[in-house]
């Protein structure tokens, strides 16, 4: 198995008779990968399997070539911010980070240094000497995030990491994830907030009822959804004229004019045919086109197409 990928090979996990995930085959490259799916779709199960907190019923998992049942090797390279909100009793934020870095194997000075760095990274230095029990939900989220990141691992697994963060902290955290993705780290994120997933992700893995229903770059996933017409937004000087010309196309499903923004939203079953027709209208009728952009190759749209119709909630 590849030593520079996170690999799930035919992995299934059952909780008694209840399906967690089934027959998952994934190869996750570096960059930011988002797990998307409704509650109970298997996102947390995948993350727990990847980090060794639970074991697969069938199949094998390797994280950069390391099996998750060898935490002494794996956790040097992986940090996991789980969804569990609780923190150990009686500890301050600083003690919490320092103590678990010591358990991780760092000496006194190094653990102290890493603790300071991690606290600064999540803007928790001022509150570091207060008891974690007195923190707000957002502060607990940040201190848990700090623990996952403190040893600077190449693989970071984050279960709903933006929950409870204020807008400023969200923006900073998203910027941090994108920076890590650019650096070639493996950032695995689950989130319900689809427009944020869009901003963060290099690739997505969509889950529904324990099955992977789509994976890859979001544009690639969208192009695979053949049964749904493609939506394209065209901004131009004469949207009505363009609409009348486009209705000659057999594959056109719908064309909606937005007068105030001088644009036309087109739904078609053949995007290539549409683009050819646009070229023709520009050359023949002198149409002045400002922009042509796909309107439904984002995570939200693909999620709606692939998952929402099954009756689940986002």
């Amino acid at each position, binding site marked *: 198995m590849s030593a520079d990928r996170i690999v799930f090979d035919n992995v299934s996990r059952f909780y008694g008779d209840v399906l967690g995930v089934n027959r998952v085959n994934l190869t996750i490259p570096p960059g930011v990968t988002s797990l998307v799916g409704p509650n109970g779709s298997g996102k947390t199960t995948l993350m727990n399997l990847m980090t*060794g907190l639970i*074991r697969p019923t069938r199949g094998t998992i390797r994280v950069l070539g390391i099996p998750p049942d060898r935490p*002494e090797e794996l956790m040097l390279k992986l940090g996991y911010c789980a969804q569990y909100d609780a923190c150990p009793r009686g500890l301050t934020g600083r003690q919490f980070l320092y103590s678990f870095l010591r358990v*991780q194997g760092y*000496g006194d000075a190094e653990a102290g240094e890493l603790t300071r760095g991690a606290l600064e990274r999540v803007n928790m230095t001022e509150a570091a000497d207060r008891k974690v029990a007195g923190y707000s939900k957002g502060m607990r989220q940040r201190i848990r995030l700090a623990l996952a990141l403190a040893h600077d691992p190449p693989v970071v697994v984050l279960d709903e990491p933006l929950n409870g963060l204020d807008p400023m902290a969200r923006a900073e955290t998203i910027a941090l994830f994108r920076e890590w993705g650019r650096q070639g780290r493996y950032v695995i994120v689950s989130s319900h907030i689809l427009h944020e997933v869009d901003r963060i992700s290099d690739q997505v893995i969509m889950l529904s009822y324990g099955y992977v229903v789509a994976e890859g770059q979001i544009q690639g996933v969208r192009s695979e959804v053949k049964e749904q017409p493609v939506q394209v937004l065209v901004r131009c000087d004469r949207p009505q004229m363009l609409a009348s010309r486009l209705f000659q196309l057999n594959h056109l499903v719908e064309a909606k004019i937005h007068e105030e923004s001088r644009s036309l939203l087109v739904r078609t079953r053949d995007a290539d045919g549409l683009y050819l027709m646009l070229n023709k209208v520009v050359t023949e009728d002198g149409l002045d086109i400002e922009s042509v952009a796909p309107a439904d190759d984002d995570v939200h749209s693909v999620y709606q197409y692939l998952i929402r119709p099954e009756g689940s909630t986002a």
Partner: protein
Amino acid sequence: MSPREYQQMLAVLRLELRKTFFSKRSWWVYLLAFGPTLVCFVHGASARHRGELAEDTMIFAGIFQFYYLKLAIFFGCLGIFSNLIRGEMLEKTLHYYFLTAARREVLLWGKYLAGLAASLIIFTSAVTLAFFFIRMHLGQVFQDYLVRGPGLAQLQSYVAVTVLASIGYGSVFLLLGLLYRNPMIPAALVMIWEAISGYLPTLLQKMSMSYYLKSLTPVQLGAEGPLALIAVAVEPAPPELAVTGLLLLSAALLMYASRKVRTLEISYSE
């Protein structure tokens, strides 16, 4: 165990001691341990009381065998050791340990040693203080008993039995906390077994921890009251056999716990 793993084990020990054992939530263990110590202090400090040394020695032997061994150390160890794993499951904090770069066995041993350190500090100090307090009114007689008589040797034996009881019951309850979602039910079965062992046939008595612990106590007490009629008198086990047997049994239980913890899953929702 490598030097790094040794450091990790010490880090677990320090963390557990800080966050659990010497916190306000452990008050009931202190009450259990130091309650009789306080009674002994009141007894010893009472100016009106002028008991005999032999009488106080027998009273202390009774307190140790029937209270400390059967109740305080048993339940104290149940509370301390079964919570090392199960308590963290209930509080949803065990995953922090499992997400460190440490072998699960190292974490388990660190937790066990933390539990052992706490129970030894609490119970040996409680027993030692009670031993002194109950006889302190005897003045010179008590000093002679300690310095020239069997007093010091008896104290050493009581402390040794306390240590062995903590090691033994600690390993039992650590394992039960690992195996069972509710370790109280199997713990109750262990308690019943230990309580009735004195009334069982010889062979079955030898399958209880209390038989070996009682064998090591310096003052042997016979059964009294109506239950004495059904008690089965058994020769105490030789000290070497009792100590070795208890340590081997504890080691075996801890080895089994080490195997089980490798495959333990985090399932807080259960």
